[in-house]
């Protein structure tokens, strides 16, 4: 019998989107100095969601000045007092999580199941976690009385808009810094809603400032002389530019960049769970994940079995309306990103890899890409080397653990890796040898505020999350 799930959509009205949005500077929303605006659209329908102020250098200047003005009082507060604000923010995020999840799914295109069950709980957890650190900084291992840096300029990507905001803002505020945050051009709305939460929580004006805009605003922010610390999450290319711009300045810099993670499946793996891990590794958030397990390395002796099971599982993925609670894969975030994914997938075919996707009806409007896997991929193919940042998995095989390590490490990146085996000693042996900031064993894409996250090589430097995440925002 056919069990069709009827549509079960969340109402877009829950997001309560205003027709226009201003910049959040010094506790007030205001237009851009030059009055410029841009529109943000829903990637699943291409409908305009709202008009948003396009911040420029002058606005960045005003935001940095507001943050600078707020810094002395904020940093002088006892840690326990700063903690109260952060706990309040965390609780409001929880209370408003349905609204925020719908807003995030509308603006970003990710399925509501993920924004509701992953993004929002983690956002609240990060604020709760760093609220706990605010009055315990002398015990963090950075000296008796570690001092904040000042004004943090933070630039975040579009793949986890609110979660990346939380990763940046929560530790910065806990340590006593004030911030100017530039959300991604295609996903400004949840950051601006977060500004409203800051006001609701009574956060002193200027402690958090949000400047929306494009790359120009981001460049102005990181280059601004009034900024003491720059934190960037995004592409390796932009990260390189920032590192270059900051070289020789006193600014402290952390970068969380791209990845091309290997998800390594041994023949003694728990195969059903490994298949789930492969799926969540590459299709979670449409593959728009810097630590996505985009290269599957599977031991030759189980390759056929794993691929059969993977294809069967992929055929069950539900692609469509991000607001439908039964959707597994939502929309690609932008036309530009879709073009990039298509280009790399075509390169994969042109270079001789075999492409497969399950039969799936993609909606007529919006940006969509069917979950895709490539077999017969070699280390030399572009799809095995370049970050695709989409729902495209490259499958390679290996014969021995040494070969698995060699192939996994054969990348300029080094953000994450996964190991699937029931043999504990092999997990430890592999983890010792893999050059990656995060190594998951018998799971993938698991995040927790207590655990540091960050990369090797061209995946960036610095850690976010955990005790380690405090270091980026302290003068140590």
């Amino acid at each position, binding site marked *: *019998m*056919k*069990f*069709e*799930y009827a549509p*079960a959509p969340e109402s877009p009205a829950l997001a309560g989107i205003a027709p226009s949005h201003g910049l959040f500077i010094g506790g007030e929303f205001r237009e851009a100095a030059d009055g410029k605006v841009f529109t943000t659209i829903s990637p699943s329908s291409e409908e305009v969601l709202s008009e948003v102020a396009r911040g420029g250098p002058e606005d960045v200047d005003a935001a940095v000045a507001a943050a600078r003005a707020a810094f002395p009082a904020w940093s002088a507060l006892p840690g326990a007092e700063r903690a109260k604000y952060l706990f309040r923010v965390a609780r409001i995020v929880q209370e408003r999580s349905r609204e925020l999840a719908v807003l995030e799914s509308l603006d970003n295109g990710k399925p509501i199941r993920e924004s509701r069950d992953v993004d929002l709980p983690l956002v609240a957890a990060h604020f709760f976690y760093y609220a706990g650190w605010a009055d315990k900084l002398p015990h963090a291992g950075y000296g008796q009385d570690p001092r904040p840096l000042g004004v943090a300029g933070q630039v975040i990507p579009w793949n986890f808009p609110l979660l990346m905001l939380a990763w940046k803002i929560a530790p910065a505020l806990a340590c006593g810094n004030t911030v100017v945050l530039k959300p991604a051009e295609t996903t400004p709305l949840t950051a601006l809603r977060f500004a409203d939460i800051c006001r609701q929580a009574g956060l002193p004006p200027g402690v958090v400032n949000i400047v929306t805009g494009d790359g120009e605003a981001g460049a102005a922010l990181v280059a601004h002389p009034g900024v003491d610390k720059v934190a960037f999450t995004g592409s390796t290319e932009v990260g390189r530019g920032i590192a270059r711009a900051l070289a020789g300045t006193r600014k402290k810099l952390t970068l969380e960049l791209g990845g091309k993670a290997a998800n390594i499946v041994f023949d003694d793996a*728990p195969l059903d769970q490994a298949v789930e891990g492969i799926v969540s590794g590459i299709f979670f958030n449409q593959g728009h994940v810097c630590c996505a397990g985009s290269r599957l390395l599977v031991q030759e002796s189980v390759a056929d079995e794993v691929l059969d099971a993977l294809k069967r599982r992929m055929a*069950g993925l539900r692609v469509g309306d991000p607001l439908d609670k039964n959707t597994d894969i939502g929309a690609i975030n932008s036309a530009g990103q879709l073009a990039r994914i298509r280009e790399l997938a075509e390169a994969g075919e042109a270079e001789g890899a075999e492409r497969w996707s399950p039969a799936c009806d993609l909606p007529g409007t919006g940006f969509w890409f069917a979950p895709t896997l490539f077999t017969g991929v070699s280390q030399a193919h572009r799809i095995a080397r370049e970050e695709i940042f989409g729902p495209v998995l490259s499958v390679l095989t290996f014969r021995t653990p040494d070969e698995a390590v060699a192939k996994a490490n054969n990348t300029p990146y080094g953000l994450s890796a996964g190991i699937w085996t*029931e043999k504990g000693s092999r997990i430890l042996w592999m983890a010792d040898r893999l050059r990656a900031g995060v190594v998951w064993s*018998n799971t993938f894409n698991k995040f927790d505020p207590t655990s540091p996250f960050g990369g090797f090589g061209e995946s960036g430097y610095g850690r976010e999350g955990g005790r380690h995440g405090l270091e980026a925002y302290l003068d140590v």
Partner: protein
Amino acid sequence: MPTTAPALPLADVTATDAALRRFLHGLPGVDAVGLEARAAALGTRSIKTTAKAFALDLAISMIDLTTLEGADTPGKVRALCAKGVRPDPADRSAPSVAAICVYPDMAAVAVEALRGTGVSVASVATAFPAGRAARSVKLADTAEAVAAGAAEIDMVIDRGAFLAGRYMEVFEEILAVKEACGRAHLKVILENGELATYDAIRRASWLAMLAGADFVKTSTGKVAVNATPANTLLMLQAVRDFHAATGRRIGVKPAGGIRTAKDALKYLVLVNETAGEDWLSPRWFRFGASSLLNDLLMQRQKLSTGRYSGPDYVTVD
């Protein structure tokens, strides 16, 4: 060059004790965290409107409506049979349940009460629920239930022998009970709560399937841990894989602890997205339950009338 192929795929794995052990221990391991996470994720599927109406009726039609109490009487069993045939006296469109499940000494009463209704009689047997009796007693128990007219036999495996690693003993016992069943369908209860680990549940599922089970069933309902979404998901994977390997389709029956319509719908999602739609039929999936039926009926009434009616509008039998 071999001149004859084995009659059944996998027949050789039960040829010797050592071969059977090697096979069962060669099955892929189960990562408990991952299995439970997958079951929980499928539990978040949102089943609304037409899908809900379909699923509620399907769930009712899959129930083995059960009474397994020391206090059971012919009167109690007859009342349960009447309820199973027409679960909602006020709404004739409500389907009948799949079967009435009773102890062997009540099987004849149920057979008489259900004659001509299309509702089947299932009887537990083999010294249910502990199964701690001589094999001759278990076989006699089975034979009596079959003689009384039970069309389905729910046996328990010897968990003691299984946990001690005497797999061949368990295998042979299932074979013997299967033979005693004659034409009756055999459901093999693994009692997951006593097997304790997911690895053991996967091995026991395969052992039962290799021995000729028509269904694998999670539990007796008489121990602390009975059916869970995770252990049912695991058994659905086992029947799916067994079908792929042998072409034989085996049913799954979670039993014990499934009391709400919401839970039942989650199990149907597990079936749909693990074994697939071929299993979405009372022929291949059953719920062993007693109080579940009333909640399904209440949800069904809510869906058709738009109002919650309350427990006084469903019958207590």
